[in-house]
């Protein structure tokens, strides 16, 4: 039971990162590799600040702002200097590795201070692992609420239109460059915030902890879409949370079956590949089924 609660708790916290990734991957309609750098950026920023005596909330705020800066760098390369988005993300991600090392001063650092956001504000009085669930729900609710409000503003609609059809958006006078900046900055801000949270939950930050986060985020998004296809945008944000929890539960089952933890990234990639291929497999299956019925 404790394992399931712990897994669900992880699912909630990681879904915040997936919501950030959703902004670029689904709303702006491009994959952003920056997240593999902005996630550890948030982690090292939060841990360094907490270790130097700052509050946990302040550390998360600065982690968010640093993530926004990382998004700004990618947006500048992509939207201003016309570097292809994949390359722009990889460039920022690579640069962030050195920056993260500079911030932390070494490859990893433990949170020796006993205070972290998971045992503050009365969360420590909750049963084991429920603090992650409660905190996750609060932050997710806040982020989804703010995102829904933003996406229903004129500016938010302009961001959606830019991702949907850039030619049309530009011909309607929308400054698509600014919209890409907004999307990338908010997205990486949220991803870095999650990095800060995960570091506090795990009790350490490591400059390599960003490897594979894009796969985790995409898995949550895709699983959510497979379970709940064709739902409005606001509901889609919530399906990401469900997708993230389901993804964590699948991983838990896989590990319980006796797979080596070293194979976790491989298993993650296989799960994502299967989810991505599922619509095609389903269509093929239905086609075969129909053809079979016709033959009979």
């Amino acid at each position, binding site marked *: 039971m404790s394992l399931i609660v712990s897994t669900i708790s992880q699912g909630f916290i990681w879904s915040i990162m997936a919501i950030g990734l959703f902004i670029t991957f689904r709303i702006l309609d491009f994959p952003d590799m920056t997240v593999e750098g902005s996630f550890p950026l948030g982690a090292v920023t939060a841990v360094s600040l907490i270790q130097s005596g700052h509050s946990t909330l302040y550390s998360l705020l600065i982690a968010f702002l640093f993530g926004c800066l990382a998004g700004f760098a990618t947006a500048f390369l992509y939207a201003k200097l016309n570097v292809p988005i994949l390359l722009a993300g990889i460039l920022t991600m690579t640069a962030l590795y050195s920056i993260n090392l500079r911030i932390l001063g070494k490859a990893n650092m433990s949170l020796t201070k006993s205070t972290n956001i998971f045992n503050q504000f009365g969360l420590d009085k909750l049963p084991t692992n429920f603090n992650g669930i409660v905190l996750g729900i609060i932050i997710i609710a806040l982020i989804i609420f703010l995102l829904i409000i933003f996406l229903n503003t004129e500016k938010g609609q302009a961001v959606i239109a830019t991702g*949907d059809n850039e030619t049309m958006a530009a011909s309607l006078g929308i400054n698509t460059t600014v919209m890409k900046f907004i999307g990338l900055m908010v997205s990486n801000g949220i991803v870095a915030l999650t990095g800060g949270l995960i570091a506090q939950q795990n009790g350490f930050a490591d400059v390599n902890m960003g490897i594979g986060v894009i796969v985790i985020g995409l898995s949550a998004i895709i699983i959510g879409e497979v379970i709940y296809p064709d739902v409005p945008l606001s509901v889609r944000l919530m399906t990401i949370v469900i997708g993230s929890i389901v993804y964590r539960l699948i991983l838990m089952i896989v590990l319980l079956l006796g797979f080596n933890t070293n194979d976790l990234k491989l298993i993650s990639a296989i799960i994502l590949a299967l989810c991505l291929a599922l619509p095609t497999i389903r269509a093929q299956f239905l086609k075969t089924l129909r053809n079979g019925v016709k033959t009979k």
Partner: protein
Amino acid sequence: MKPLLEIKDAVKTIYNDDDNLNILNNINLTINPKDFLVVLGTNGAGKSTLLDAITGTNQLTSGKILLNGDDITSENLAKRSRHISRVYQDPKSGTAPRMTVAENLLLAKRRGLPRRLRLRKLNDHMEEFQKLISNLPTLDNRLNTFTEKLSGGQRQTLSFLMAIIQKPELLLLDEHTAALDPQTSKDLMELTSRIILEKELTCMMITHDLSDAMKYGNRLIVLKKGEIILDLNQEEKNKLTEADLLQYF
């Protein structure tokens, strides 16, 4: 009458390693308010490049573009969109597929205006949008339909409505019926003509359809290799037949 649009000595050159090519070769064109100018020409004649230069999608190599006497040559696409709207040939180019018909219309309602951080007021405009599509059987009752679910004809009709919902000073139609089946194309062309007359719009329409070119518009030009080789007013146009026009291709 003060001209609405003046294109002066417009040149657009494509630079190649061995040969430079003038897509637009010293174009001079004046469009007056309420003109319905039809543009004909073979593929590669420079028709779409001319529209790109007018909207600001592509800047001229040399020459000037004046709108209401103001030089807009160096203005970007966003600034020009306050005055100029365009319907593209591809039905997918003019609409946002994952937004509803009403959301698309609302986006177009603020064409050229800054997008602020304030809540959009979709419900305030639903009645107006409903009225706009009420006489169009293909779009009626589809305000809440996602655009990706619409047919090519429906999407192109929506693109056209988006271009005229906020009355443009100049409407550019870039072979906007070319990708549609004959009946849908005819319906959209009739709607286009009716609305241009009703709203007294100034319009520049590219087409490959000679019968449409003869039937619609009060002025006709033919482009060939980046130059205007024929410029006819209504009276001169009426004297021509489709066969006469063919000799210019």
